[in-house]
């Protein structure tokens, strides 16, 4: 039922400055798709191209194989939710929700039914006759969402809809948006710079940087197999080390930070001996080593320790002077490290990621 959006070799320029160079992307029908990237990377620009508010300098955008380049924004049948809500202050909540329907030559009864049902879905029925400026930010954003989806749009576009809300509301609204989207089943493009929000809400995510797509994948893929060091550090936390490759009888070893030598299976072939690499390690991929005899470790001192219930978060200063973040599942009261305590670490060689020297290609081969 949903619509597939295909963005084909699209370019956006402001004057001489190319903001988006030749970008291609396919968003599957019915999925919750997120554009994730640091602020200024061109997410809004791309979203507004889909909506029709920005011109397209080259390339095409298709809805189900139909090019929409020449269709003006008011004929694209798009639902949009903005960061600043953009609720019409001179209309009641109900009038806001019905606004798009009234343009669509529907009879009064249908308008009423549709808007009642959508207000039910986003839980604003009780505010129907209020004026928007009597509503909180979260309630206003619900109205905006209702107003956007009540017209049964081909696609739903949301530009940082939660960033004006406080942290608690953000989490509440994020699941509300997720649930409503699943219930209605519209193809949704969601823009955010908040990776945690993206991971929590999306079916798939495209990570953008400087107008280019870095990686497209499910939250799990992005987290565990980031395509490059940008994604590794932008999505979740990773420590990126310089490393060197060592081949030995067909076994592949990586020497991390000149100290820790680990065997990595599933590495791509064709890497030369002593080739410079990058290795990214997530906090939970560091493993403390208890045996003082062990020398193949990264040594450091615990600088801080935060107990978070399910796990502990440490800041460790390595002998190289570098600060890293490490976490440890809460297991037993005796296993914890204290501030100032010396610590030896190795890494989980199944889970760490290995990149080429520029950090731009992930060298781990997925089996299967």
């Amino acid at each position, binding site marked *: 039922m949903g619509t597939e959006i295909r963005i084909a070799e699209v370019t956006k320029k402001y004057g001489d400055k190319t903001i988006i160079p030749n970008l291609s992307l396919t968003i599957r029908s019915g999925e919750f798709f997120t554009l994730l990237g640091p602020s200024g990377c061109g997410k809004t620009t791309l979203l507004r191209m889909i909506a029709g508010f920005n011109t397209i300098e080259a390339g095409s955008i298709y809805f189900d194989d139909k090019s929409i380049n*020449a269709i*003006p*924004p*008011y004929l*694209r049948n798009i639902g*949009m939710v*903005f960061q*600043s809500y*953009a609720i019409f202050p001179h209309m009641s909540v109900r009038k806001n929700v019905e*606004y798009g329907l009234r343009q669509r030559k529907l009879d009064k009864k249908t308008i009423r039914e549709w808007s009642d049902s959508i207000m039910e879905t986003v839980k604003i029925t009780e505010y129907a006759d209020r004026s928007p400026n009597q509503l909180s930010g979260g309630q206003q954003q619900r109205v905006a969402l209702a107003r956007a989806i009540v017209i049964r749009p081909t696609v739903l576009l949301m530009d940082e809809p939660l960033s004006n809300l406080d942290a608690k509301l953000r989490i509440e609204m994020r699941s509300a948006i997720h649930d409503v989207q699943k219930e209605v089943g519209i193809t949704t493009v969601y823009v955010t710079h908040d990776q945690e929000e993206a991971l929590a809400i999306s079916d798939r995510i495209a990570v953008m940087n400087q107008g280019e797509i870095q990686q497209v994948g499910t939250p799990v893929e992005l987290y565990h197999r980031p395509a490059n060091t940008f994604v590794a550090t932008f999505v979740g936390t990773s420590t990126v080390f310089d490393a060197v490759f060592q081949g030995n009888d067909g076994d592949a070893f990586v020497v991390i930070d000149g100290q820790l030598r680990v065997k990595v299976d599933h590495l791509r072939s064709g890497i030369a001996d002593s080739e410079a690499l990058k290795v990214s390690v997530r906090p939970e991929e560091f493993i403390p080593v208890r045996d003082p005899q062990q020398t193949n470790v990264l040594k450091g001192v615990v600088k801080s320790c935060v107990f978070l219930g399910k796990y502990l978060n440490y800041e460790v200063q390595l002998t190289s002077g570098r600060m890293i973040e490490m976490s440890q599942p809460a297991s037993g009261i005796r296993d914890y490290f204290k501030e100032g305590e010396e610590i030896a670490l190795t890494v989980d060689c199944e889970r760490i990621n290995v990149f080429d020297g520029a950090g731009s290609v992930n060298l781990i081969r997925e089996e299967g």
Partner: protein
Amino acid sequence: MRMRKQWDSWMVIGIAIFVLTLLFLIVPLGTLFISAFKDPSTGTFSLTNFARFFSKPYYYNSMLNSIKVTVTVTVLCVVIGVPMAYLMTTCKIRGKTFLQLMIIISMMSPSFIGAYSWILLLGRNGFITNLVRDLFGFEMGTIYGFGGIVLAFTMKLYPYIYMYVSGALSKLDSSLTEAAENLGCSPVKKVFSVVIPLIFPTVMAGVLMVFTNAFSDFGTPMMIGEGYRTLPVLVYTEYVGEVGGTANFASAISMIMVIITITLFLVQTRIVDKKSYEMSFLRPLEPQKVSLGKSFLIYVFLYGVTIVSMLPNLTIVVSSFRNSSGPVYKEGWSFNNYINAFEKAGNSILNTYKFALIAILIIMVLGMAIAYISVRKKSVLSRFLDTVVMFPLIISGTIMGIMLLLTFNAKPLMLGGTATILIIAFVIRRIPYTVRSSSAILRQMNPVMEEASISLGYTPMRTFWKVTCPLMLSGVFSGLILSWITIIQELSASVILYTGSTATMSVQVYTEVSRNNYGIASAMASILTVTVVLSVLIFFRLSGKKEISL
């Protein structure tokens, strides 16, 4: 790409407005320019007119007079307006709202009627003059000439400075002045070292406003100046004078006026440029209680100035009910003046409201469209419109009248003597207020609101009607009220453009005064004054505001 289509309707509107501007503003300006350089006897291009102006003291003295009057008035207005604003903002004053209302009303009242009232009070046969003579047997000096002009202008124009400076002071953060106090500044020093520099740009904006008003006003010097000629009076008398070919000379004087105003405007923008301060985090100045002795002086000052500036309005209304014959008021009270006024000039009363209403409707539509184009559809065209449309703000109405008449007094557009040309003059002269206030509110409005509507299926044009328009209205009205009030009291352009059947109330007051029919004049003037006051009050009631944004 083919996205262009959606802007098409605005493009058409933009071009239409551009053509109108060209036709009714640029071409007339050009005509004035050409006319100024034409030798009236030979019809060839020359500098004769300018040479004539600068060769005879009779002519160039009026320029010196204008400058003398304007500078004096401006200085007085600053001297009165700035302390008033400062005291009203920083001290607890009883009846502040009342004072403010009175100040606004003095500012909005027709200035030539003010001048006329001062004659009724302090003229040869004035109420106060006679009172002083009867009581003390003492002859006061006459107010005709320089003194009278300055008095009438100052009482009408100091509110501009007051309003501007109050606005600026209300945006000052109190921590600034507190900081100054902690540094050991005494209150007086604080004012000079902290407050004045901060409000300086605003004072300059007000100064420009007062200056252009005083410099270009025709009615006041004409009424009370007698032999004391200023430039607008000279332009008028030269233009309507019987000697042939004086239109060219009047154009040349007009050009000189325009050049003086533009120079001043440029100097002002140069001085103020980059000197305005934005306070981001605001804790406004708190009004303080003042000691008894001090507060007595403050009250005398504030109430004194306000009452004196309101005096003309009261005088006019009171004297309109006195019996009169010619320039003499007699014993007894009646409605005779009104009855005579309606009989003799009822037409002009109707004209005033009719023309003003038509002009206001046009201003509303055009003003909103121009504001929308200049804020939302940025282009070379829109920047041009934005600047050019504001230009009439600094041109004297007399000059505007002459420009229009020079241009449209021949086929194919023979408009001389019609109501149309009056309405055109009203629109051009007073649309800047509405454009300015509409643009201001549009700039504050997030365009995302309009995009939301477009994404919901409304074309840009329907979006304008459904969303932009309703949200703009409050801003539009705050400009419209100013346009309206200034149109109904318009004299300087009307007096050039009217014919018997298109006379308005202002013109009628002016002619009745010059014919010594003081009774009818004061009845008409009262109707005008009351209309102004009611308009202001109704606007305040409807908008919930307590100020008129200039």
